[in-house]
């Protein structure tokens, strides 16, 4: 069922069993899981079914620290959320991503990869991926042209990826609006979360829109599913009863913001042509791999988890950095710029792709960043159209992040030398071991994580291992904000898995 909240009578009170705030990847995944249950699900979406600049403006904010994309254009504010722009790259986190590593401060989740495995399998259905199988040997049988480099498997392994083309808005719009027990309200922007007197229960949330309407929503359970930056913002901005914001008694909400560092950090020059489809991504491909460092070698070298992907060098050298291209406040224009820059690089590559460069690849890093309390989302004094304080993001990296990138390429360079396949060349910023600076063209994956991190100890995390906000019995967070560490792979598969796990938990509580 679909209701446009702009058409409701002002000050309406909406009631349901559970209230999911945000109809993006996490929110829709959860809502789908409640279809045909005996419960009335209220699904609140700030935008409509199409892009609306007035609504998108609500995402506007300020960034400091490491150069970042305009906050307004890093997410999409309408039904379907940021799947409207995502690239669909999926791979599960590795077991090491969940454990406490003594060389990574603040690492360690209260759950393990095994706990998530059954939910990863379910997430695959929602994201319309292939089988939940990321074994190279499986994919080698499926797609025989995936020929691996012969590198020492004790050091480097082939981390498999699958590709989703799911755009949740188009894919699930009908299913959600036709579901009898799902009550989707569009143009229903949550602006405040109201608790009981002791701040242990959520009583209601306040919803507003640009039509000047204000409504209240009451439910037994509330799930925040607005994306990692926005979830933190809403908790911090709901400060009429708890001065520091909800769930923030220990000053953790918004802290430990993490991104994936993505960057063209090195080059691989092969001595001979090596025909394989394993390391290249093309639209419509079912699976491919990135080169990853084994857990043992990560541990020995005390580095973060990261992977390396290969792009033809002639193409990549002509490609502008994403940070330079995705610079328009309007996400549609940024996406257009991005596509154009890819086409231009392809054209330029055709002219120079001769000789040894035709056997050369740009090595792209994709790596977790170490959890850092100073990398954080806060709220400023300025407010958006609906009266919510705007977001401030200070993205900050650490020395460990850079050292890990350098080490990964040193290890890869060594393995390439042993195998005799080719040679690796580091980009300038990695060459001096004492240089801790970052290059201007450093990119991020548009992956927002860690702002409501998970820990069983309320002093160290915002949510419990079940994604419930510490101290508030009926408030939960769905999404990558709950990550204690950011892993190497893109976040969406894991956040859908985590949301489905939360879904089961809330069902058990009904």
């Amino acid at each position, binding site marked *: 069922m679909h209701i446009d909240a702009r058409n409701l009578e002002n000050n309406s009170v909406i009631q349901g069993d559970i209230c999911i705030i945000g109809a993006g990847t996490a929110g829709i995944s959860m809502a789908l899981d409640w279809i045909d249950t005996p419960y009335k699900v209220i699904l609140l979406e700030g935008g409509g079914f199409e892009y609306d600049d007035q609504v998108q403006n609500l995402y506007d904010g300020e960034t400091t620290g490491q150069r970042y994309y305009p906050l307004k254009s890093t997410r999409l504010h309408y039904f379907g959320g940021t799947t409207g722009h995502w690239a669909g790259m999926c791979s599960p986190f590795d077991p090491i991503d969940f454990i406490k590593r003594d060389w990574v401060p603040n690492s360690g989740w209260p759950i393990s990869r095994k706990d998530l495995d059954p939910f990863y399998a379910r997430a695959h259905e929602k994201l319309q991926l292939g089988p939940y199988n990321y074994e190279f040997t499986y994919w080698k049988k499926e797609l025989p042209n995936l020929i691996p480099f012969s590198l020492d498997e004790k050091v480097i392994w082939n981390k498999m990826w699958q590709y989703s083309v799911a755009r949740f808005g188009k894919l699930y719009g009908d299913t959600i609006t036709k579901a009898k027990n799902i009550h989707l309200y569009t143009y229903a922007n949550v602006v405040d979360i109201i608790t009981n007197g002791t701040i242990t229960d959520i009583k209601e949330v306040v919803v507003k829109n640009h039509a000047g309407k204000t409504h209240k929503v009451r439910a037994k359970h509330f799930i925040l599913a607005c994306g990692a930056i926005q979830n933190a913002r809403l908790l911090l901005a709901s400060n009429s009863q708890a001065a520091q914001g909800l769930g923030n008694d220990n000053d953790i909400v918004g802290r430990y913001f993490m991104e994936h560092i993505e960057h063209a950090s*090195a080059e691989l020059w092969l001595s001979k042509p090596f025909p394989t489809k394993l390391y290249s991504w093309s639209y419509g491909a079912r699976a491919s791999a990135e080169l990853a460092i084994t857990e043992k070698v990560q541990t020995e070298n005390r580095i973060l988890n990261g992977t390396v992907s290969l792009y033809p060098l002639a193409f990549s050298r002509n490609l502008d950095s994403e940070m330079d291209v995705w610079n328009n406040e309007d996400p549609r224009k940024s996406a257009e710029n991005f596509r154009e820059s890819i086409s231009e690089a392809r054209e330029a590559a055709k002219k120079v792709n001769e000789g*040894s460069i035709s*056997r050369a690849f740009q090595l792209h890093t994709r790596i977790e960043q170490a959890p850092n309390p100073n990398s954080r989302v806060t709220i400023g004094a300025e407010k958006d159209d609906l009266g919510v304080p705007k977001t401030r993001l200070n993205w900050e990296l650490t020395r460990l992040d850079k050292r890990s990138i350098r080490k990964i390429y040193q290890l890869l360079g060594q*393995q*390439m*030398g042993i195998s*005799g396949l080719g*040679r690796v*060349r580091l*980009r300038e910023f990695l060459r001096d071991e004492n240089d801790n600076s970052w290059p201007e063209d450093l990119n991020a994956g548009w992956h927002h994580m860690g702002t409501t991190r998970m820990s069983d100890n309320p002093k160290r995390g915002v949510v419990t291992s079940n994604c419930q906000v510490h101290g508030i019995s009926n408030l939960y967070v769905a999404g990558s904000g709950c990550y204690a560490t950011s892993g190497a792979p893109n976040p969406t598969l894991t956040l859908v898995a985590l949301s489905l796990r939360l879904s089961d938990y809330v069902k058990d509580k009904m």
Partner: protein
Amino acid sequence: MERKKFIFMTTAAAAILAIPVWYYNSCSSVYDQSLTKPQLLSNIWDTETIAEIGEIYKKQHSSENSPSKLIKLLSESISSEKGEIVAFINQRIKEDYKTGRIVTIDGWILSVTEVRQCALYSLTQPK
């Protein structure tokens, strides 16, 4: 066989086997040209780059800035016939990578042996 004699004979045999290399070691003007040609790098770089990398290495390691020194270092423990030198050097490059005898020059992660080949090339090619 008498022990002394045996030692003498094995030394003599080793000397015969090592003659080409010994010869290169002692007389820098005559050496196997393959010592100046890093095989894998030649598939990637042009000769100019090989010389440039060699130059940088020589500057960083001034004690190796002479053909005879480099020939000696490159020929160390080569006891094979001339034709097998390339295979021997390639094997040593792999060993370098395995054992961490690696240098980074202009960003390239290289084996010490192959960089010495570049350095020898830069010293021995007419400018």
